[in-house]
């Protein structure tokens, strides 16, 4: 436990218990998304599906990275992961990104993907809002994750024809923003 680190955050007026709950719930969202996206990716086949597979895979790997990056901060702040993985799954900040009934409906899969990313964008925006100027390290982490979530949202949204976002698929290493927390 990082005693002084916690003291600083508390002194700045952050509700650490609530923040920890948010961090755990979002870590759960990341790991469960990683799992559910595995199934979505496997079903992204055919002419339409294969075009999306690459970005779905990048988003999947980066979400796992987000889980990895969040965990140390949870323990630093005196929190922990639930003992039971079932409990962990069920506390996720976002609903399961389950495969649509018609697994061949690529547009339906895309909708599941974009909604999962939008839930994440809202969640990390909130964590940024409550830590800004108070808990610098959590803010830096949440902002780094947010940067990647916004790109994930953009990739899927463009395929749904919602308009241009200016982003291209990931070139080079995954998690350009979060990687500093993974070293």
């Amino acid at each position, binding site marked *: 436990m990082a005693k002084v680190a916690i003291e600083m955050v508390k002194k700045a007026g952050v509700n650490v218990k*609530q923040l920890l*709950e*948010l961090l755990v*719930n979002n870590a759960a969202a990341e790991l469960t998304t990683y799992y559910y996206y595995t199934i979505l990716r496997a079903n992204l086949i055919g002419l339409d599906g294969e075009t999306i597979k690459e970005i779905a895979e990048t988003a999947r790997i980066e979400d796992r990275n987000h889980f990895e990056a969040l965990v140390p901060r949870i323990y630093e702040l005196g929190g922990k992961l639930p003992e039971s993985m079932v409990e962990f799954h069920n506390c996720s*900040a976002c*609903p399961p990104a389950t495969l649509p009934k018609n697994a061949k409906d690529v547009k339906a899969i895309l909708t599941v993907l974009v909604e999962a990313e939008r839930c994440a*964008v*809202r*969640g990390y*925006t*909130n964590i940024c*809002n409550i830590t800004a100027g108070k808990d610098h390290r959590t803010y830096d982490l949440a902002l780094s994750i947010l940067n990647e979530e916004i790109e994930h949202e953009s990739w899927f949204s463009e395929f749904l024809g919602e308009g241009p976002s200016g982003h291209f698929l990931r070139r080079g290493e995954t998690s350009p923003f979060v990687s500093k927390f993974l070293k």
Partner: protein
Amino acid sequence: MRTFTEKELKKYDGRNGIAYIAYRGKVYDVSASYHWRKGIHQAMHRAGCDLTEALEQAPHDPDLLEKFPIVGELVN
């Protein structure tokens, strides 16, 4: 339409499976929402309350409420 006082609304905080929230005088039933399980939203908000002011700070618009049934009005 059914009317709720703040005190009556408090009974529907999600603990007994029913989660109602008030926004701009209207009471919404959010019991079916994943995001309001056990009446708790984002570890920060509790059902059974008037959340008009809280929603101003939310990272989303009030239109997310539209898909939930209105079950009454909040009165003073």
